[in-house]
Structures are given as C-alpha cells and as structure tokens.
C-alpha cells in the first residue's frame, strides 16, 4: 500500500519538483539574509529547513498513497480536522490575541493550516460521491455546511485569512467538477444577497469586529502601518534590488512580520523587480504543472484533488502577494514555501504530494 513501484517513478513530475526546490532555496536565502550580522537570528533558516525535511517526508508518504484511498477516507479526516479545530479552544496557545496553535510535544501546530488539505479532500469526496452525481442545486448547496462549520470555527480563533481561503478553493473545485456557470452565478448572487441579512443578524460588537477585519485603517497602529512599510520596502528595491546588506527596511525591522506573512516584501527589497519576476515565474511554473496534472488526470476524482491542491496554493500566493503589495486588505495568509512556519510548510508540501500522487497514477 505504501510503496512506489517503478512505473510510478517514471511519472514523477520533475519540473514541478524543480520549481518547488527553487522557491525553497530562495526562502532559505531570504530567511538567513535577515539574520546576517545579527546575533541570535541565524537559527530561523535552519529550523525552516528542518520543517522542509518533515514536509518532504510527508510529501513522499502522500505521493506514495493512491489519492483515491485518501479521498475515500476524507470524511474521517474531516471529522478529525474539525476536532483539531475545536481543540484549539480548549488547549490552544494564545499568541497576540489569537488562539491558533496547539502544542504537540516540543512543536506547536496550527490545526487551521493542516485543515486546508483535509478540506480539499473533503470537497473532492463530496463532489465525486455517487450522491452528488447530478450536480444540481441541492448537491451544490450541500457544500455550504461542509464549508460553514470549519469556517465558523476558524473565524472564532480568529484567523480570517485562512477561513476566507476556503472560498476560492471551493469555487475552483465547483468549476472543475463541471457545475454549470449559471448555477455558480446564481450561487454567487445568493451569497451576495445573504450578506446584508447576515449583517443585520449580527450583534453590534460582531459587526465592529468584522469592520476591523475588513478595514485595516480602523486600526492605525496595525495593518495600515504594515502596509505602508511593506510598500516602502518593495518600492525601494526598484529594478534590481538593494542587495542583502542594503535592505534597510527589512534588516532594521521597519517591516513587520518579515519572516512570515511579509517575507515577499523582504525579498522584493533585496532583489528588486527582476528578482520578483524570477520568484513569481517559479510559482507560475509550479502552478501550471498543477493545472496540467489536473487536466491530464485519468478520472474526475484525480482532477478534483489536483485542481483543489493547485487552487489552494494559487490562492495563498495571490492573496499573500496581493496584500503585501497593497492590492488586497491585510489578512493573515502565509506565502507557500516561502514564509517561515512549520504548519504552512507541511501543508504546502503535502498539497504537492497530492499533486504528485495524481500525476504518478495518471496512466494507471
């Protein structure tokens, strides 16, 4: 069951792995450059590499398992994932006002991160299940509770970024499953129409909370300052960048969250527009391989799994870069394979494992 035969190895997607390796290398260089000439910061890159090791092992394990087995077990994973989300409220560690982490021995894990992959499998399971083969209004509507339960749990942590991420992934899967665009349009309209109702149903303090989430300028000490500093960092990199030593925004700590959510700004300051193009091209190659795997999948389950994994990565890259460059409001979404953080790395590599799993079995 766990084991890779020769035929499977012939179908490993080397270009996908090459793009992944490139991004990981860029991440390691960026993280270590943040600590050049500074005491006590040098460990970050190594800890990140340790997580890459763990993640790579997960990647191999997932790739070696037939994704159809994983999809069949998806409801079980889903229940376990929900339990993980609930456990945060009981066992969670509070960091700057949010309970997102639970301690597993020496490491802290973010259940909401890990849930992303589970979610992809669960939606794929539902849309490919025999109850859902008519793909009508009812089938599609039943996706809503699958989203709603984890969404509420994750929002309560609070971690709006991760919660909102469930939507583009779901939409991509619905599109991939062949739901007619008219139905999708109707769903979107219904959702828009429901927003004011939900707004009216909310209590005042909840509204205020949502407003703070949606409008970072309500909190002048927080997000607005971050966005300004990120823009300065990115812009001052100009065409070719300031190099590692000259990246004052990053190295003098004007940039907030520079190891994690804002790492793209660090990279942009150091390597400029040209560097950003190189990095974005790596992501585009990686994602196009993902889409190709989905398109070439032998049957719908594989297509949905590959498309979901690819959509998950694509949404995170675009939301993260969009928010760092000031196109989107700031929500906490890490840059896959770049941002420092174990859970995020594990999830990204697991998603890639799913892609490989689909790829290797496309001719079976």
């Amino acid at each position, binding site marked *: 069951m766990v084991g890779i035969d020769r035929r499977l190895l012939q179908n490993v997607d080397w270009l996908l792995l090459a793009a992944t390796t490139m991004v990981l290398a860029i991440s390691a260089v960026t993280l270590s450059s943040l600590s050049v000439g500074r005491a006590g910061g040098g460990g970050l890159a190594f800890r990140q590499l340790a997580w890459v090791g763990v993640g790579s092992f997960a990647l191999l394990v997932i790739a070696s398992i037939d994704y159809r087995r994983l999809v069949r077990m998806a409801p079980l994973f889903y229940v376990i994932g929900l339990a993980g989300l609930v456990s945060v409220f009981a066992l969670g560690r509070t960091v700057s006002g949010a309970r997102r982490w639970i301690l597993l021995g020496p490491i802290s894990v973010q259940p909401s991160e890990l849930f992303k992959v589970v979610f992809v499998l669960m939606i794929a399971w539902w849309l490919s299940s025999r109850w859902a083969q008519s793909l009508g209004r009812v089938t599609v509507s039943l996706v809503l509770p699958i989203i709603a339960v984890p969404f509420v749990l994750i929002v309560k942590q609070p971690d709006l970024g991760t919660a909102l991420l469930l939507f583009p992934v779901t939409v991509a899967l619905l599109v991939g499953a*062949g739901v007619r665009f008219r139905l999708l349009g109707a769903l979107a309209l219904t959702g828009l129409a429901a927003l004011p109702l939900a707004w009216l149903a909310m209590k005042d303090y909840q509204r205020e909370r949502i407003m703070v989430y949606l409008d970072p300028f309500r909190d002048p000490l927080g997000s607005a300052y971050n966005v300004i500093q990120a823009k300065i960092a990115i812009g001052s990199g100009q065409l070719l960048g300031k190099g590692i030593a000259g990246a004052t925004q990053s190295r003098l700590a004007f940039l907030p969250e520079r190891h994690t959510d804002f790492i793209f700004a660090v990279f942009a300051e150091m390597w400029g527009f040209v560097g950003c193009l190189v990095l974005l091209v790596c992501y585009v190659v990686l994602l196009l391989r993902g889409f190709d795997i989905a398109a070439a999948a032998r049957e719908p389950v594989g297509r949905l799994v590959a498309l979901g994994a690819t959509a998950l990565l694509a949404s995170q890259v675009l939301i993260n870069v969009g928010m760092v460059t000031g196109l989107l409001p700031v929500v906490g979404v890490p840059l896959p394979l770049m941002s420092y953080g174990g859970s995020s790395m594990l999830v990204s590599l697991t998603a890639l494992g799913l892609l490989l799993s689909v790829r290797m079995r496309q001719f079976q």
Partner: protein
Amino acid sequence: MSTGFIGRRPLPDHHEAGRHRVFAVAAVVLAAFLIVIGQLWYLQVLEGGRFLDASDKNRIRIRPVAAPRGILYDRHGVPLVDNRPAFTLSLIPRELERDAERRSATLGRVAALLGVPYAELEDAVARVSADSFVPVRVRRGLTLEDVAKIEERKLELPGVIVEVEPQRTYPSSRFAAHLLGYVREASDEQLKHGKYRRGDMVGQTGLERLLDEYLRGRDGGERIEVDAMGRPVRLVQQTEPRPGAEVVTTIDRRVQEAAEQALDGRAGAIVVMDPRNGDVLAMASAPSFPIDRFTGTIDRDAWLAVVRDPDYPMLNRTLQSQYAPGSVFKIVVAAAGLQEGTLTPLDRIHCGGEFHLGAWTFKDWKEGGHGGVDLHRAMVQSCNIFFYQAGLKVGGAAITKYASAFGFGHVTGVELGNEKSGFLPHPKVKRGRQLWQGGEVVNMSIGQGAVLVTPMQVARFMAAVANGGVLWKPRLVQRVQSAERGTLYSDPGQVTGHVELSPVVWAFLKQSLWSVVNEGGTGAAARIPGLDVAGKTGTAQMIANSKASRGEDHAWFAAFAPAKDPEVVVVILVERGGKGGQVAAPIARKILNAIFFEKVAAIEISG
C-alpha cells in the same frame, strides 16, 4: 433533480469538458498574476525612487549636537558664567505611540514620574509635526534622580529620551543677572525671523543677547542609522559642533560681587567705572531675578511672579531707571558758575534754613540752616540755600549747557539696550528769547524738579570730573575671541565728549569733593583712612511723584578714589533709602574698601 441546472452528463464520460474547466481556472490565476506583476512594476520601477527616499527617511535620523555656548570672562580671566552638562527631557514625535490613547498614557506617566504638568508635554508635541524625528525639548535641568526614573523605564516610554546638553551655570543664583542676561529657548517670535531653529538656546537679555551671535557657536550633528524601534545602529556621518567664542568683559568679578553684597537686599543700583578709560568694573541692580532659574527650569507661575513683581526685578536700574540727581547735581552748578565767572570761591551767604522767591519758600535740608557758608562749605555741607541763590546767579541756560556737556540728557551709548536718556529742563522760548521760570532754576540747582538722570550717566559724569573732562562711552566688552578664529571683535574704548574747564576749576571741584568725605562733610561715612576718597552725596526728594508716600527719598552717593589720581568711580543709588550720606555713602565705602584693600581668596565658580 432533473431541472435545468443539472449537469449534462455524468463526469467520468466528460473528460474534455473537465479539461476546459481546469483551463478556465488556470486562466483566472494567470490573469491575477499579471495584475500582481503590474503592481510590482508600478511600485518598484515607476515609483521606486520615491519609496527609496521614504526608506532613507525611515532609517536616517539627524540628531543635533548642541554647541557649548561661549564663556564670559571678567577682566582678569575669571569666568562670570560657565557651562556644565545638563540633562534635558525630550520627546521625538515620530517615535511616540501613534494611538492617541496610548500616547496620552505615555505622556501621563512621564508627567507623573517627573512632576511636570501634563499640559506642558501635550503642548510641546502639539506644536510640531507628528512625523518629525527632531527631538522636542520639554524640560531642561533634570536631576540625576529624574534621569534614572526615565532611563529605567525606557522601553515602556517610546519616543521619550534624555539628552545631554551644555547648560549655563552661574557663581550664584542672582549674580550679575541684568548684566549677563538669561538664555532661553528661542521664542515663537524669534523663530519667525528664521535665524533660529526650534529648541535653540538664545540669549534673551543683557550681554547674552548682545553677543548671542558670537556666543552661540555652531551646532554639530550626527546622521544616525536607526532601526524600527529608534535604536541607533550605526553612525553614518558626524559634524563636530563649533563652540561659541569667548568674551572678555571689563567687569571685575570681585568688585561685582562686592557691589552686589554691599547693596544687601535694598532696591537700587551701583556702577563702578574706571575713569581713565570708561571700563565698567561692576554693574549691579537690585532687586534682581534668579538668572539660573530663568536659564534652566522655571514654571510659568514663578516666571510670572517675577515679571509682574511691582518692584520690577527685571529692570536694569543702572540704565533703565531715571531719578532726580539731588545734590550730586550741585557739582554741575558749581562748575558752570566757576567757569562762567558767575560764582567764585569767595562768594558767601548766610544760610538761615529758608529761601524766599516770590510767593514760594524753599527750605534747606538742615533745620535752622548752616550759618555763614561759602562755595566750598556749601559743597561740603550740601547747603541748599547757597545753591538756590547760586543757581539764579548762574542761570538756567548755563546750568543746562554744562549739564548737557557732562552728558546729562544723552544716553551713554552702552550697548545693553533700552537705555534711558534722562531729562534736562528746557526754557520757555518767547519771541526768540529763552525764559526760565525762577522756581524751576532754583529747583534744578539742587538737582530736583524736572532733572532726571540714570546711575550710568552719573558714573560717566563723575568719571569726567575725576579725569579732567573726558566723557567715555562706558565699555563692557573688551574683546571677543575664539581659539580657531582669533579675535572676532574688540572695543578699544571710545571718547564721546570733552568738558573744557580751566584747571583751577577742576582743582576746586576735586578739592571740595575730597572735603565732602574727609573734612566733616555729608559724605563722611565714606571715609577710609589711607585712601583719599572724594565724593558727593545726594538725596532726591520724590515730590513730583506720589511714590513719596511709599517711603523716603532716593539716596545717592557718587565718589572717586584716589582723589589725586583717580582709578575708580563708584556710584550708588538706593531707592527710597533715605539720606545719601547715611545710606549710600557707607555702601560706597564698603566697595572702595573691597577694591583697594580686601584680599580675596581664590575665586571658584560654583555649579
């Protein structure tokens, strides 16, 4: 479930449609990437220069380093004022909490820790841009205890720093306050002229203001790279401050201190001058103000209390107050009469204590009169009756002519500013002829009535009597010099006028002034055995002003010594002190004694 929305066929059979669906998602993703790349092009290539400036602005702080202010020395090289490092509480607006509530909390804590009014901190921050990195000085002269309180909580008080600046220190709280003047942060009014930057220390009165240009020096600066917390990372560039130039004054610190002590809390003025060159050796005015507090920390109430004090402590009485000269003016009348031939030493009258002119009766200060008096005795005893008649003989025109020649009615030209010119009466002019009112001339002859003089004018006049008629512009500053740039300014002294009197007249005047002190005259209280002191008392009645009701007359004593070859002139005025001979003369004696006899222990300037 077979409505219009139903999928057309089961998925497994629809491979080609599924592929198209995947491509649709991929197309959306690629489009989004193009938008992101467009934004990066905008930020990095189109607007990159602007953001580069912004990032430099972020990391580079320019910290001014105050130049130490130049030192003022006395004529022997003893400092009159010095600098010591002082601690200043400053706020950096850009580094204060951005959130209004949290900023208030920070300022509130500082206010509570140091006992500073909260409004003062708030005002200081409100006056400048919240984006400024230039420290706003809030409170100078922190104690070491205060500094410790702030430094201990440094991390909890973002934007609050303690700077070290050179600050003025004086030998004593009120030492030469009017002469030196105080130094304070440039006022809003001064900032408007563009000569100063906010927080610059500027001389506001006295020599500090007169010589501010020289004393100020040039501030240096440091360009420092800082991190986001405002912690310095490295020094990018440094400009050393250029200290202010040294000023060598004409003041003798020992004499200045003696003069201030001799006044002993009484309101009045003292000028000590060298009649040979016009050098001012001491200039004291009382009541005085606490110059150290004016320069350092003073709260608004204490400041207002001084400024609104009905005794006007801010007034430099040596230059800015005008008084009737009293009997000191008799010297002018005698000089005019002798030189014009309308008076001779042999003129004699009987003084019965009263003099009648028309309907008026003028009295002598002495009940019953002095009996038979000649000019010499009239000077020595300061007999009013003699001078009433002498004044009428000499005439108002001659008296004012000589008084004007001796400098009365004209400013002395000392550079301290706001100097009053005094006043000499003018005759009424009718059909081209000068007409003097008899009563006016009588009053003027004994230095009463409309005549007004400043103590500095009396000193210049007395110096002219002592040196044979030379009017010197009083000199306060000998030179301004700096170590690197040599002498920047020097004042060789300036003669502003001559009084031509025949030698016998000078001799008579000196002789009689010597007798005033040494032969049982009204100035006997100024007598010092072994030193030939010559002088004249004066008691200025305050008839014209209703202030007389508040007390007694102003007491004058103007002296020079040694009588034969005068080296110093001492002028004393005590407001509402009483009789010149009883109040002012003993003060002059103390000062003369200090100048000529007292050996003073080594002078240390104290912090």
